[in-house]
């Protein structure tokens, strides 16, 4: 009977086309508003690395000065000093460790007629690639030896590689960066985790495009390439590059990868012991609690999804509710003019349950039509949102999951809206309807 009712539902769309169009549009607008905001929320709050997000940990340790500190206060910065980063890399705790900082550099193309390309990249160590499962299209990550020797090697992002070399494999070629020759060892396939959780550069930058290049941390330090992004400096700092490296300024992002999530406590102990050791050396005087965050906890801590996004989603849901109330009214009007049909069907052998099923499936068909129209409107809304900024371009796109949710939401909304009108239709007394015709 489902197919029969479904076909009746489709046929019913043609009846009272103006009323049907109004219902579909009402539903579509509500669904589109909800789906647009939900899509952005979904992309922002989605797990960017689900296969291991529970065993990648970001430490948060307070190395700030005691002066002016109130116990319980949050650390000055959520990044780490260079000294601590190097210490953790050397300690080799966990499966992998990655220290990184963002850099901006002018890259000089091999063709002299082309201008230098301002590029955004990351200075890190070779564990980064395995830790974050970066896919390679050519070559591979540099070696540990390259890290140790601070070699001038580079892994290119696929967009920059295409811009410079087209579709050819550039591995082995040299690229001039800040006046030095860097040998290309690998090219990444498209890799744009969203949000770009692995490095913190402010909430807006969390949804940036993919990196143009990656060079060894040691090489960046050797060439004194300054970081792009925020830095926390509360203590005294000696002047010059070496002064920055020796300082308590925090500008490095650090990640640990553990074999299993259950080893978290061991990592916590390691950090506590490390802080205690540093305290003996005259650092970490605040006695603050050392914290650990896995990827999702880190996104929550850094408020990747802001309250304004959540508020937008709630407002959109409220709007959907308003649309639903309107749809209830329209469905009541649509179904009430069909009381005589209900009477006939009841007289010819339809039970109340059959009538209920028929009208509810008819509501679902309206929901499906509303879903299609809502999807078109949502695509339009997302395109408009994407035009607002580069960051929003990254988040304002629909995936299969949201596509499915659109239809499920629309059909569910239509069914919910159809419950009362359907129940009313079932209450029709056939004898009265049949005589009144």
């Amino acid at each position, binding site marked *: *009977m489902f197919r*029969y009712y479904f076909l009746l539902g489709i*046929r*019913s769309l*043609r*009846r009272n086309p103006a009323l049907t169009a109004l219902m579909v549009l009402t539903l579509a607008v509500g669904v589109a508003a909800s789906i647009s905001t939900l899509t952005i929320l979904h992309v922002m709050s989605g797990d960017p690395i689900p296969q291991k997000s529970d065993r990648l940990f970001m430490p948060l340790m307070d190395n700030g000065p005691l002066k002016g500190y109130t116990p319980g206060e949050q650390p000055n910065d959520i990044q780490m000093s260079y000294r601590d980063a190097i210490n953790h890399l050397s300690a080799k705790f966990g499966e992998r460790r990655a220290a990184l900082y963002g850099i901006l550099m002018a890259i000089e193309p091999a063709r002299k007629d082309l201008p230098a390309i301002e590029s955004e990249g990351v200075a890190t160590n070779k564990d980064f690639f395995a830790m974050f499962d970066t896919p390679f299209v050519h070559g591979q990550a540099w070696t540990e030896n390259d890290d140790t020797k601070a070699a001038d090697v580079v892994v290119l992002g696929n967009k920059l590689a295409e811009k410079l070399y087209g579709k050819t494999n550039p591995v082995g070629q040299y690229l001039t960066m800040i006046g030095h020759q860097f040998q290309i060892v690998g090219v990444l396939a498209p890799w744009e985790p969203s949000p770009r959780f692995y490095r913190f550069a402010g909430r807006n930058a969390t949804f940036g495009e993919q990196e143009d290049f990656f060079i060894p941390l040691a090489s960046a330090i050797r060439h004194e390439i300054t970081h792009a992004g925020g830095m926390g400096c509360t203590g005294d700092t000696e002047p010059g590059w070496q002064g920055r490296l020796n300082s308590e300024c925090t500008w490095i992002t650090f990640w640990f990868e553990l074999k299993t999530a259950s080893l978290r406590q061991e990592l916590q102990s390691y950090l506590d012991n490390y802080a205690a050791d540093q305290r003996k050396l005259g650092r970490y005087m605040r006695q603050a609690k050392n914290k650990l965050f896995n990827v999702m906890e880190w996104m929550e801590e850094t408020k990747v999804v802001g309250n304004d996004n959540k508020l937008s989603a709630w407002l959109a849901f409220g709007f959907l509710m308003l649309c639903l109330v309107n749809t209830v009214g329209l469905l009541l009007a649509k179904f009430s003019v069909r009381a*005589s*049909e209900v*009477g*006939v*069907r*009841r*007289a*010819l*052998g*339809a*039970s*109340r*349950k*059959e009538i209920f099923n028929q009208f509810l499936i008819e509501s679902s068909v309206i929901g499906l039509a509303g879903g299609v129209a809502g999807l078109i409107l949502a695509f339009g809304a997302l395109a408009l949102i994407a035009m607002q900024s580069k960051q929003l371009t990254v988040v304002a796109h629909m995936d299969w999951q949201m596509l499915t949710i659109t239809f499920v939401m629309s059909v569910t909304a239509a069914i919910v809206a159809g419950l009362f009108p359907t129940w009313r239709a079932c209450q029709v007394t*056939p*004898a009265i309807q*049949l*005589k009144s*015709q």
Partner: protein
Amino acid sequence: MLRMKNLSKVYRTHLIETHALRGFDIHVKEGEFVTVTGPSGSGKTTFLNIAGLLEDFNDGDYLLDGINVKGMNDNARTRLRNEKLGFIFQGFNLIPDLNLFDNVDVPLRYRGLNATERKDRIEAALTQVGLASRMKHFPAELSGGQQQRVAIARALAGSPKLLLADEPTGNLDTQMARSVMELLEEINAKGTTILMVTHDPELAVRAQRNVHIIDGQVSDLVRKMPSLYDAKADGKTDGSSANEVDSSAVA
């Protein structure tokens, strides 16, 4: 086929009680063609609605094809209605956005028949009423008489044991009314019991029996008429020569 004994139906509002039927007794035998007449408000439609299981009654007994329907729940009554009864209404009551085939299909869908059997039954029913060639037409494309024929086909498709007709010719002109009546007589001749409410005395006297209802009770006016089938068998077609009161029909 249908037996009602001491049946009563009362409509109640917070101010008044209206006795639509009281002490209502009737027995319709299998294969009979019974017309029901009476003035407006006498209880004809209430009787037909109760007979068609569309309304419940307050007291008394009602046996349909030997089954006591008293106290039956809505689902059981619906199933019984679908299996045993066919309806023909004054206003045809076809579903306007379904074509003839789909209109006749409606009761068969609820019976859960498979597609082939439904198709066979629909085609046979529409052929019987002379509209097989217009299966894909919609009700609005037909005349009133043709629409009533479709309604008859819809009632016949389910092979009902009892056909209930509520003023089936009320919306038709004389010629069409006569044509519909002849069709009903043919159906009756093939063995289907028919119970027809009518205001038309000419049609009323054409049936085997005419039950008259006044003030919710069956009156003593019961005529015995040969059916068209019988009349034809006797070489008579006007059926006007054999009227006589048969009070035994009132139980």
